[in-house]
C-alpha cells in the first residue's frame, strides 16, 4: 500500500541553526538517499521532506522553518505524535568511482544521507561542496568532513570557506580535477548553474528537484513538469541529465497551490 502510514512520537529534535532543525523518529523506513516522506501534523496539514538519515530503527529529516506548517512543527516537542508516509520517489543512483556532490542551503539533507551510503558502498573518492549564505546557514559541516574524502565550504558572505557559491567552487575544482558523476541538490537557480558547468565538462549529473506536492503518489498532478508530463513525486525528485534535458520547466516555472503556473 503506497499510502501506508506510521504514526510516531517525535523522538529527538536537534537544533542545526536558528532556522533549521533535525527531527528524528523511532521507526523503520526502508529508504534510499533522495527519497522523501510526507509528514502530517494532525489538524494542520501534510508536507514533503527529504530524508537526511536512516538507521536500523530510526530516520530523520532536517527542516527549515519557513511557513505555517514548519512553524507549527517547530513548536512541537519530543513525544508529540506526527504521521509519516513513504518513502516516495526515486533515489540518487548509488555509483562508486570518483564522485562529486554540490549542495546548497537547506537542500543538502539528501546529500548527507547519500554520502553515508556511498561510503558504505566503498566509493573510490567522494568530494563535497557545501554552500550557503553564511557560516551560520551551513548544514552538516562536520558530518561532511568525516564522510567525504574532501570537503569544501562556500558562503556568499565569506563567513566560512570560499567566498561565493558552491557552483563557483565546482567550476574551480573541475578545472584541474575530473569525476565520474556529480550529484546536485540546492535552490533551483543554483542547480541550473551547476548543470551548465557539468555540461561543459561532459560530467553526468543528477539533480534533486522540488515542486509543490500534495499527494506524493502521482495522482493530483500538482508536481507534474512540462512538456513531458514528468511526474516528479514518483519519477523524481532525483532527475538525471537525459531526463532533465526534456524538462523545459527546470529553472523556469513551477505550479502553485491551485495548480497555476508560476515563473521562477
Amino acid at each position, binding site marked *: 500500500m503506497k499510502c501506508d502510514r506510521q504514526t510516531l512520537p517525535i523522538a529527538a529534535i536537534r537544533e542545526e541553526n536558528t532556522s533549521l532543525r533535525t527531527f528524528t523518529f523511532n521507526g523503520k523506513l526502508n529508504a534510499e538517499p533522495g527519497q522523501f516522506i510526507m509528514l*502530517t501534523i494532525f489538524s494542520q*496539514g501534510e*508536507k514533503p521532506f527529504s530524508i537526511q538519515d536512516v538507521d536500523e530503527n530510526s530516520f530523520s529529516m532536517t527542516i527549515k522553518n519557513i511557513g505555517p506548517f514548519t512553524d507549527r512543527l517547530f513548536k512541537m516537542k519530543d513525544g508529540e505524535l506526527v*504521521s509519516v508516509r513513504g518513502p516516495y520517489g526515486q533515489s540518487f543512483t548509488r555509483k562508486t568511482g570518483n564522485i562529486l556532490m554540490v549542495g546548497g542551503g537547506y537542500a543538502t539533507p539528501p546529500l548527507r544521507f547519500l554520502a553515508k551510503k556511498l561510503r558504505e558502498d566503498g566509493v573510490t573518492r567522494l568530494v563535497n561542496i557545501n554552500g550557503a549564505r553564511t557560516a551560520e546557514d551551513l548544514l552538516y559541516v562536520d558530518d561532511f568532513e568525516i564522510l567525504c574524502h574532501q570537503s569544501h565550504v562556500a558562503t556568499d558572505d565569506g563567513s566560512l570557506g570560499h567566498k561565493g557559491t558552491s557552483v563557483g567552487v565546482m567550476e574551480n575544482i573541475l578545472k584541474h580535477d575530473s569525476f565520474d558523476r556529480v550529484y546536485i541538490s540546492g535552490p533551483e537557480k543554483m542547480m541550473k548553474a551547476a548543470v551548465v558547468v557539468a555540461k561543459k565538462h561532459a560530467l553526468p549529473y543528477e539533480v534533486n528537484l522540488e515542486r509543490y506536492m500534495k499527494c506524493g503518489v502521482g495522482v493530483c498532478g500538482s508536481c*507534474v513538469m512540462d*512538456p513531458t508530463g514528468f511526474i516528479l513525486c514518483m519519477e523524481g525528485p532525483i532527475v538525471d541529465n537525459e531526463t532533465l534535458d526534456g524538462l523545459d520547466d527546470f529553472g523556469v516555472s513551477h505550479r502553485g*497551490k491551485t*495548480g*497555476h503556473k508560476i515563473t521562477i
Partner: protein
Amino acid sequence: MRFLGKEISTPLTLASGILGISFSSLQRVIRDGAGMVTTKSLSIEPREGHEGPIIAEFNGGLINSVGLTNPGIAEGLEEVEKFHAGIDGVVIVSVFGANAADFVQLSKAVNDSSADILELNLSCPNVEDEFKRPFALMPDKITEIVSAVKAVSTIPVLAKLSPNANDISAIAKLTEAAGADGLTMINTLGHGMVVDAVAKRPVLRNNIGGISGPCIKPLAIKLIHDAFKVVDIPILGTGGVSTGLDAIEMMMAGAGAIGIGSAVYDHGLEVFKSIRDEMETFMEVHGYAEYSDLIGILEEN
C-alpha cells in the same frame, strides 16, 4: 469507435481529477494509451482545495478529499489549447460551479475553447461543507443546470452523476430530458472515513472523503446498468475499473466508454495499455470484433 460523435481509438478515458491539470499530463496519458482525457474540474476562480492529507488508502480502494483544487477556468483552458497544439486527442473539460449561472459562464468559456466535450461535475462529495448536497442528488437542480448549459453549449455535454442518488433511474431520465448528451457515472461515493487508531484521528485533514477504486465497481456497474435501461444517451462508465475484464463488464452493463481514475494510483499510467491489451485478448477469445459490440449486451438472469 465513436463516443458522442468523436472518433476514439479506445474507450479508455482518464477520469477527472487524476493528474489532469496540465497539457503535459493530458498529452502523456493519451500517449500512454487513453482514447480520451478529462481535465480536473475547473471553477471560475482558482481554488486551493483542502489541506493534506487529501488521500488515504483502505482495503479495497481510496478515499480522497482533494476539494477541487484547480487553477481556474481561464488557465485551465490555456492548457487545453496547448494540449491540442501538440497531439491528436479528445479532451473532456470538467467544470463545476456554485449555481446554474456559474455553470453557464463556465460552459461558454469551454465552448470558446478547443475542448471537445464538456462535463458538468454535479456530484463532488468533497465540497459539501461549502456547497451543501451535490446537485446530482437534487432533481430540480440537475434540470436547471443541465438545461441552462445546453442552451449555450454547441459541444456535447456530459452530466456527472453521484452514486449516492437513491433512485438513479429517475435521475438518469430527468438528466436526459434536460438535454444532456451523455452521462458520466459515477463520481466517488460519499463519504468514507479512514481512521488512524494510534493518533485517534481521521487520516484525512478534512476527516472524510469520497470513496473510489475497485470497491465501488459493483455499485458503479449496477447504477450504469440501471441508467442504460432507461436512457438513450451514452454513458461514460467510471468507478473501480483497473483490468480489461472490469472494463468489459462495465461496457456490457451499458457503458459506451470507460473512465479510469484510482487505477492510475494503484498501477501507474501503464494501466491504460494493460487494460487495452486485456480487453483485446478477451474480445479475440470470445469473438467480439468491435468495442461497440460490447455495449449493453448484458442479459439479466
